[in-house]
Structure formats: structure tokens, C-alpha cells
């Protein structure tokens, strides 16, 4: 797919998000600019606490109460989502952008029938009621691959298995024909076999409804399956972004190297698996230089002083590391990353 001349559906510009916590301020998103292209599938990868969920919650107006957009803008169809009031969100959330949360056990109401929960979304957003809503809900259930949708419509969440519940959550997200579907760790709580099925389902839905997808995940196997483009996040910043093949086969940022090297599939038996030392930086304090420098096995002196700019490797691939500067020493990526090609 050619990504260079695609139109952007969402355009995030110089976004800074801070949280107030016990009188201190936590800088969760540090000056991120990102375009989500129409019809693409973008994966956002990073450790927990890297800000990947916070970034996407801005698109659906679900930022926690103590968080605020300090500067920057998020453009969606000419409107700045950063300026939205709760009233503006009501016509937007669900209809334009919908979200599938991580744990299907907690995102369904255990006291209401599945059918009621899907119809609720239809009632609020499309003003569908009665028979009409029920017909649509049954159609949605069969769309997400649930057998006997008529009978399942009347059941409660506890009568569904984990994978089936996740299908119901996806049906609810699809109820209002959103243009952008954000999946926050959609398969983390599921088994491998079920995970593969859900990923296939999401891919089919994307083709059928011409959806734009954003996956938030830390599982690189999932990413390889579904993503056209990958953005690697570290400490509230996108450190590398490129097409799926570029990031897997010619990664440039040391953090991406470290993430890929710690895959158990690349490990050699009876030897230690590569692991990233230390912990992510404290976002309460300002970060000087490259946020990953302290955990980087081979940092440059400048990494501790100045924050690197983006260096462009190809029109679709850029990374924030001083290693790409002309004056930097030529460092080869770790050997084990090469073996990804042979897996």
C-alpha cells in the first residue's frame, strides 16, 4: 500500500498532555505529531506506561478527569477535538470513533442482556428502537461470527466465553458504523487460538466496512499480523514510525532494537533472553535528552544532553535517535534481530 499520498483522517499536531497527581504534574504525552491515514491500520506499540492508551483516549474524549491537553491540537475532519466539550462528544463518540477495550469481562454490564446492551448503543446514537433495533443487533451479532444470534441476543454476559464476549464488545463498537475503530489491547486477555480468531474477525470487518483501525498493543506478534504501519512509543513520545516491514526488518531506534530482541521467539535455549535493563523514566520529572539513553546499552554522549529530532530514513519511515545523524558512529543493530526474517 502506498502511504505517502493518502489523506489523513486524524491529524495530531504537537500534542502535550499532562496529568495532575497529588500536586505534581505528569507529562504523559510529550509533543507528539501523528497522522492516521484514511483506511490504514496503525499499530501503537510500547511498554505499559508509555502513553499509548492516553494518546488514543484523546480521540474519543475519555481522558481521565485529572488530565488535560496543555498544547497542540487533534484535527478530525476540520474540527479540533481538543476544544470539544462533553456536549460535542455526544454526537461524535461511537459514530465517528469507537473503541474496543482490553478486557471483555469488565466492559460489559453483567446485569443486562447482551441484546439490551447492543440496542442501547443503537438507541442513543441512531435513534433505533423496538423491532428495528433488535433486527440490527441480531445482524451485528452474526456479523461478528456469533452462532445462533437470535438465542444469544437474550443471554447475559456470563453465558459467553471470553472470546465470545470480546466479539460482543466488537459488535457494540460497530453498532454505529464508526469510521475509526480503536482497539486497546483487544486480545491480551484471550487465549492464542481465540486471539487468532479475533484478529481475523477484525481484519474482515475492516475490509467489509472500510474502517480505519488503530491497535494499541505490546504484543509484537499481534502487530505483525494486523498492522500496515507501526508507531513505537516510549515515555510519552513516538520514537520510531514506519511501515510494518520497515520497523520489523530495518529498525533504527535502539529502543525498537531492544523490544524486538526481547522476543522469546528469538531466544536461544539455555541462554539468557535479551532483556531491557532498568525501568522507564519518571514522567513527573522533565526528561533531558533521549528518554531511552539511561537504558540504552550503547548510548551516545549527546543522548543525555539534547533531545534528538526525527531523522527521515524513507518517506514513510522516521526515527528519533542521534544514531541517524551524520556525525554519529555507525552502529549495527543487534544480530538476533536479523533472525526475524527466518522465523
Amino acid at each position, binding site marked *: 500500500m502506498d502511504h505517502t499520498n493518502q489523506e489523513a483522517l486524524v491529524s495530531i499536531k504537537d500534542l502535550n498532555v499532562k496529568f495532575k497527581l497529588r500536586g505534581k504534574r505528569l507529562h504523559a504525552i510529550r509533543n507528539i505529531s501523528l497522522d492516521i491515514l484514511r483506511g490504514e491500520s496503525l499499530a501503537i506499540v510500547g*511498554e*505499559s506506561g508509555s502513553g499509548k492508551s492516553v494518546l488514543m483516549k484523546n480521540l474519543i474524549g475519555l481522558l481521565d478527569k485529572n488530565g488535560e491537553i496543555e498544547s497542540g491540537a487533534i484535527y478530525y475532519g476540520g474540527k479540533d477535538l481538543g476544544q470539544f466539550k462533553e456536549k460535542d462528544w455526544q454526537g461524535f463518540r461511537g459514530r465517528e470513533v469507537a473503541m474496543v477495550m482490553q478486557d471483555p469481562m469488565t466492559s460489559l454490564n453483567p446485569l443486562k442482556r447482551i441484546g439490551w446492551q447492543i440496542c442501547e448503543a443503537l438507541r442513543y446514537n441512531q435513534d433505533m428502537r423496538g423491532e428495528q433495533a433488535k433486527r440490527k443487533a441480531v445482524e451485528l451479532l452474526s456479523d461478528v461470527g456469533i452462532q445462533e444470534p437470535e438465542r444469544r441476543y437474550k443471554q447475559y454476559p456470563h453465558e459467553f*466465553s*471470553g472470546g465470545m464476549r470480546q466479539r460482543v464488545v466488537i459488535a457494540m463498537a460497530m453498532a454505529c458504523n464508526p469510521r475509526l475503530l480503536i482497539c486497546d489491547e483487544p486480545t491480551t486477555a484471550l*487465549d*492464542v*487460538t*481465540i*486471539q*487468532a*480468531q479475533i484478529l*481475523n474477525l477484525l481484519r474482515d470487518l475492516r475490509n467489509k466496512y472500510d474502517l480505519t483501525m488503530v491497535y494499541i498493543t*505490546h*504484543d*509484537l*506478534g*499481534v*502487530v*505483525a*499480523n494486523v*498492522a500496515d504501519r507501526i508507531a513505537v512509543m516510549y515515555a510519552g513520545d513516538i520514537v520510531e514510525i514506519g511501515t*510494518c*516491514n520497515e520497523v*520489523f526488518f530495518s529498525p533504527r531506534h535502539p529502543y525498537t532494537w*531492544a*523490544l*524486538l530482541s*526481547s*522476543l*522469546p*521467539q*528469538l*531466544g536461544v*535455549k*539455555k541462554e*539468557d*533472553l*535479551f*532483556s*531491557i535493563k532498568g*525501568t522507564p523514566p519518571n514522567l513527573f520529572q522533565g526528561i533531558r535528552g533521549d528518554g531511552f539513553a539511561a537504558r540504552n546499552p550503547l548510548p551516545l554522549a549527546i543522548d543525555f544532553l539534547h533531545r534528538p529530532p526525527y531523522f527521515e530514513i524513507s518517506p514513510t519511515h522516521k526515527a528519533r535517535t542521534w544514531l541517524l545523524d551524520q556525525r554519529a558512529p555507525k552502529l549495527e543493530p543487534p544480530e538476533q534481530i536479523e533472525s*526475524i*526474517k527466518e*522465523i
Partner: protein
Amino acid sequence: MNNEALLSVHDMEVTFGTGRKKFVAVKGVSFDIYKGETFGLVGESGSGKTTIGRAIIRVNPTSRGEVFFKGEKINGKITKELDKRIISEIQMVFQDPMASLNERAKVDYIVSEGLQNVEKKLPSRERRERVAKTLGDVGLLPEFASRFPHEFSGGQRQRIGVARALIMQPSFIIADEPISALDVSIRAQVLNLLSKLQKERNLTILFISHDLSVMRFITDRIAVLHKGVLVELADTETLYTNPLHPYTKALLSAVPLPNPIKEKQKQLTVYDPSCHDYSTDKPIWEEIEPGHFVHGNNKELEEYRAATSRIKNA
């Protein structure tokens, strides 16, 4: 590796409820775990893999069969003295380090709780020393003993979970999905810690997980469980290169590969239990080649044997 069995499970059955509500979670499972190895147990959620682990450690009672640990029967009714020994010899590491540590207790207490129950007369100075040493062994600082669990990251908490098991000086550890709740980068740290401890202390580990990519890296042998029945057991490499049972094949095909080109072309194999016809020919648990067990009826076993010899000759 010597093939001396540390733990053997014979025809174990675990049942929940009675009468009409009776549910058999584990149906006649048999396997041996050799001394010093890492034995993997895979299966979907609800397949009974955790139940097997819990039955071995005597949390869930068995309804049939025997469990032998170092040659002694440890299920059913046993003497108090043996029970006490088992408690310290077999320890468990749990899945979610956020949920399995007491939020209101300090690390010192969490780690030494088991010790206080078994060695009641232990002077508190020695207890503190042992806690400090164990914390050091799992890569934590001794001064962490006076902190609460919420002050730690996920990886550090899981280390506390490992320390709590280690302080009892067990010879056998049941690790129930110890890394499923952790991030990729922290996963590697905990896996390395487990294999380091295993080498240093000659531990035997039962590793329960549904993640086959991790299993290949860490285990020596793997048993595949489906709905309470063991369907296949083999050396890790044999299982990956020559899976015989259709369920094992389906599981392996679902493992995500971190290679976008291959992953996007991958064909999923779906397991359909109705592909077996067990109406007349009942399935048995049979050794196809040395160390490779499969569950199947005579006709299937014949096919499996043929497939194995084809691979060997190729």
C-alpha cells in the same frame, strides 16, 4: 538430564461439585516430571491446566488417581508430617503479581509468611536475614523488605512472588502463567530469573501457560491439555517439529509470529473435536516413539506412527 521422576501423576481426576452438578475438570491425566527439568503444560483457558497444578499442591482434592512426589503418595489423606514437608518442598508462583500480593502487608511479611508457619521458632533476626538474602537472589534490594507492594512495578512484584516461593527452599516450583500479565520487556527479565534460579538450585519447574512462543524457549518437555484430557506429550522440539494430534497443530498454527510477511500469509488450522470417531474404537494414551505420547484410538495411532516414521526417514 537423568530421567528420574521427581513427580509422577497417575490417572489423576479432579471433580467439582456432586450429583447432577458434577463437573469433571481433569480426566485421567498421567505424566512424569523429571528431576531438574522444566515441564510445560499448555492448553486454553478452562482446559484444566491450573486445576492440575492446584491438585498437585493439594489445594484441590483429587477424586481418583495418585500423585507421587519423590516416591511418596501425596494426594488424598496423608500424615501431618508429610503435609508439612510438602508445603515447603512444592511452591507456587501465581499469574498476576498485582492480585497475588497482600496490599496491606510489607514485603518482609509477604516473603516470610510461609517460613513463619513452618518454622515457628525461627528467631526474627535470622528470619530478616533470610528475607534479605532471598530478595537479593531474585534481583531486588534488601531494603525493599520494609516497603508495600504498590511501590513496585509489575516485574518487581513478580520477583517478590518468586522470592516468596524460594524462601521455603523448594525443590519443585509450579509456575502458573507467571508472565502472562507482564509486558514484553519485563517478561524477558522474569524468564531469565527463573532459568537462572533453576540452574543454581537444580529446581524442577512445572510451567503452566497458554503462550507457546514462550514455552518453546523455556521448557524441556511439553504436555498439551484439551478439556481436561492430555492429548499430546513430547520433547519441546519434537512437539514443534512433529505435532501429531490435530489440536496441537491448531494451537501451534495460532501462535503469532513476529515476522509480518509470514504472519500475514499464515493459514490458521481450526481444531474440530468431531474429527475423531470414538464411538466404537476408544481412545488410549500411547507412546508413539520414545518419549512422545499421543491420545488417540487405534486407527489414529496407526496414522500418527506412519507420519512419525515419514519424518524420520525424510
